[in-house]
């Protein structure tokens, strides 16, 4: 590489991870310096060119040695900090002996720069350097990761911060990246093989004979009510910024300061429930997009989602940043403290939740068949008058109801012929946007729900959708098969979007698991009753037996992936290519 040395490289002041992207700045994950930084943004230098080198590196996860796929020898990959309005130029060199790639998650960019082998480009061959070059036309917290094979599971992911041109609509004194991930010392392909042999391989929290009669309905349906996560703490170690809970990643604050924490769920397969006992969290961004602030005690992060929160610790003490997995099989932990080395009590893991009749899409007429305790709660959720009152008033105050198609009623699930690829079809499907999700229903605290999310400004395109597409999320857990509309990618590759249209895309989850669905290249505006203020998301959790809709402005060209962001679900077929077509001429 003759021009390697001539290339101008620039130092950037980074936040959170305290990392620098540079020519030969190597920092092993465990030795990372944690600096507190929120420099005046006018003082930040933004790199003109960034060089990233992807290779296998020996890393230390906690006390254990392992080999990871690293970017510039670090897990997570170095923070990339950019400025809205600049052009990002990123040279990615592949020093692996297999193809690799980087996808810029949530970034709106030209199709060839999206970084998905086989959809946007050919991938980066061993020894090759690929130059990504795209204008930055947005701001917020995002991330990047490999889109080749199961590399992401081995550490190939990192954070992106894009500073806005105009200042943020909220104030803060410091900011930190809190990147959550799941690490396994097993080969990810062995993990997949194990799941194919026995889909409950990693579930060590199954129900026992004690609950035999209670579970009769589940056994009847050949379903497991404890099937919350495919891969669990049985093999995973959960990390914050690459550090195990014992290492205790610590962010420093001065009492009274406003601290912005940029949470990124960079895990392969894990949903995290995040809280900081003792502090209220003000959620200001979801998926990099400014939202009308919501004050909560806890929020759930699906794989690949990001949330920016602001906390204002007043006391001279330590607070635990606690990210519990949805199945309660483990946690990632960090600390917010006035100095390094301080700790706060670590909460106990809560009891692992069990799936309810509602996850099965059972109509309440069926309730006589099984009177387990969880039914009561779910029933109220289904009738939903009491819980909805609050949200309804919120919606009316925006006086945008007439624009909205948002509907909370359970409707019979009429589409149930997905053959062998789908097991256990829910009887009813409905919106569950006002539910915090399994295990968070009765915490007694304020938990973020999707219907809380309201974009800070009205969306720029308020057209009514011209067209609606239904996409069913399907799967057969018994064989560990996951698909859309009962067909995996190799059986049905494309969905057509029409250029220029305003599209309504409706997801119907026919499975018993949550799926974080990610669309590349375009925003999904979640139809959650927020009218003109629909939140824009790149990744949306669809709960079991849920039907929800997003609106999409199809203002791009080319081909873009749409997939479940659970890495192994994507790997076995829950993936589609969205092909942007010219609008067909309407007959007559």
């Amino acid at each position: 590489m003759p021009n390697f040395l001539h290339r101008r490289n620039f130092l950037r002041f980074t936040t959170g991870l305290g990392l620098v992207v540079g020519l030969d700045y190597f920092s092993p994950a465990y030795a990372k310096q944690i600096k507190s930084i929120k420099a005046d943004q006018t003082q930040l230098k933004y790199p003109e060119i960034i060089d990233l080198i992807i290779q296998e590196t020996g890393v230390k996860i906690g006390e254990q040695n392992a080999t990871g796929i690293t970017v510039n020898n670090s897990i997570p990959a170095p923070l990339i900090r950019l400025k809205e309005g600049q052009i990002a130029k990123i040279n990615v060199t592949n020093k692996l002996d297999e193809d690799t790639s980087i996808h810029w998650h949530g970034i709106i960019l030209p199709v060839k720069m999206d970084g998905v082998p086989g959809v946007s480009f050919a991938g980066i061959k061993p020894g090759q350097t690929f130059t990504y070059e795209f204008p930055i036309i947005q701001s917020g917290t995002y991330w990047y990761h490999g889109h080749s094979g199961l590399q992401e599971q081995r550490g190939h992911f990192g954070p992106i911060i894009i500073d806005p041109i105009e200042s943020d609509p909220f104030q803060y004194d410091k900011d930190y990246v809190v990147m959550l991930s799941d690490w396994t010392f097993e080969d990810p392909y062995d993990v997949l093989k194990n799941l194919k042999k026995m889909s409950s391989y990693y579930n060590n929290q199954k129900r026992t004979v004690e609950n035999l009669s209670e579970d009769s309905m589940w056994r009847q349906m050949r379903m497991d009510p404890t099937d919350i996560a495919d891969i669990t703490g049985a093999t995973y170690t959960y990390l914050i910024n690459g550090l195990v809970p014992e290492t205790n990643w610590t962010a420093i604050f001065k009492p009274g300061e406003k601290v912005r924490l940029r949470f990124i769920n960079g895990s392969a397969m894990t949903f995290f429930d995040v809280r900081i006992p003792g502090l209220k969290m003000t959620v200001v961004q979801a998926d990099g997009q400014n939202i009308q602030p919501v004050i909560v005690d806890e929020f759930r992060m699906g794989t690949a989602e990001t949330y920016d929160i602001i906390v204002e610790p007043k006391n001279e003490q330590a607070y635990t940043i606690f990210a519990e997995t949805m199945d309660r099989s483990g946690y990632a932990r960090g600390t917010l403290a006035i100095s390094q080395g301080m700790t706060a009590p670590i909460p106990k893991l809560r009891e692992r939740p069990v799936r309810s009749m509602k996850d099965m899409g059972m109509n309440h007429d069926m309730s006589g068949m099984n009177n387990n305790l969880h039914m009561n709660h779910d029933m109220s959720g289904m009738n939903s008058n009491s819980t909805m009152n609050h949200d309804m008033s919120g919606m009316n105050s925006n006086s945008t109801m007439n624009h909205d198609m948002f509907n909370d009623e359970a409707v019979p699930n009429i589409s149930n012929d997905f053959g062998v690829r789908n097991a256990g079809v829910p009887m009813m499907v409905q919106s569950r946007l006002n539910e915090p999700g399994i295990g968070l229903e009765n915490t007694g605290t304020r938990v973020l729900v999707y219907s809380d999310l309201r974009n800070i400004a009205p969306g720029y395109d308020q057209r009514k959708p011209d067209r609606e597409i239904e996409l069913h999320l399907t799967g057969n857990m018994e064989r560990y098969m996951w698909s859309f509309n009962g067909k995996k990618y190799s059986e049905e590759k494309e969905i057509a979007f029409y250029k220029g249209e305003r599209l309504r895309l409706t997801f119907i989850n026919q499975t018993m698991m949550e799926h974080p669905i990610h669309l590349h290249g375009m925003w999904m505006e979640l139809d959650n009753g927020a009218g003109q203020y629909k939140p824009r998301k790149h990744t949306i959790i669809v709960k079991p037996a849920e039907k929800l809709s997003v609106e999409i402005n199809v203002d791009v060209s080319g081909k873009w992936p749409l997939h479940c962001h659970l890495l192994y679900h994507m790997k076995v077929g829950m993936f589609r290519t969205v092909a942007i077509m010219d609008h067909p001429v309407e007959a007559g």
Partner: protein
Amino acid sequence: MSLKTIIYSSFLTGLLSCINFLTDVSTVKSEIIQNLEKFKLNETIINSNQDIFTQDFGENIVTNESLNQEFAQQDDETPNKDEENWPSPIEDDEIFWFLLVDQLEYRGSDSKDFFRWDIEGWVGGDYERIWLKTEGEVAFAKDDGGEAEIQLLYGYLIAPFWDLQVGLRYDRIYGSEDDRGRAFAVIGLEGLAPDLYEVDTALFISENGDLSARFQVEQELLITQKLILQPRFEINVAAQKVENFGIGSGVNDIELGLRLRYEINRNYAPYLGINWIRLVGETENLARKDGESVDNFSVVGGIRMLF
């Protein structure tokens, strides 16, 4: 104040602070200075930054998101020439395999002691799999012989929980008499029935046209996460009498088993249990004639392995 003004002025502020920063190095930490020197950070950067801000964005910086998106997409129209040679974004039809040594055990009873195995495995994809099943037993006492069975099947997923299997089975009996074997054609159904019963059932037609059938069902009951009770039931029936193999027409035998295993991990689980085989009907009579036991209760111990 127009947006343009805001942008230009904020850019100017940025530029000024850049220059200020670069000239006033005394305020900068020493490590940063080193890095600056290393990367030869100098004025050209600022100039080129300026180029980026002015030349490429012109007047339209974030005034209109849709315009910006169009800008972002501007060079999408040129088709990719080598698209056919691209790899698939995901490989979702890979071949996997599975091997379960369900029984590898010592069977002790009043009459005879046996070593017994029951193994099944497959290799294939989501819908189509090649199955291999083998079971059999060998007596520990000399000349008491034993029997072995092997099946090679093609399985196709016909319902979410059910695999239809067709193929061949070969049986061999060893003993004091001459060794003898026979082959069968097999059509079977294996899968998970409601209430989580693991069912494996098949119809066999021997090379001589004799028809027989087998029905096996077992369940897994978790006492704890690691302690698992596995009740098992098997029944064999035949349409014709095959005296050479000690089989009468009608129900041949009923087998009940109960194994309690301890999963050290998913792959290795030693177990203890009991097993009871009762020959019935014509088969029972044939066995009595040969002086064999018809009611066989045994205690079993072994290891279950998943590969």
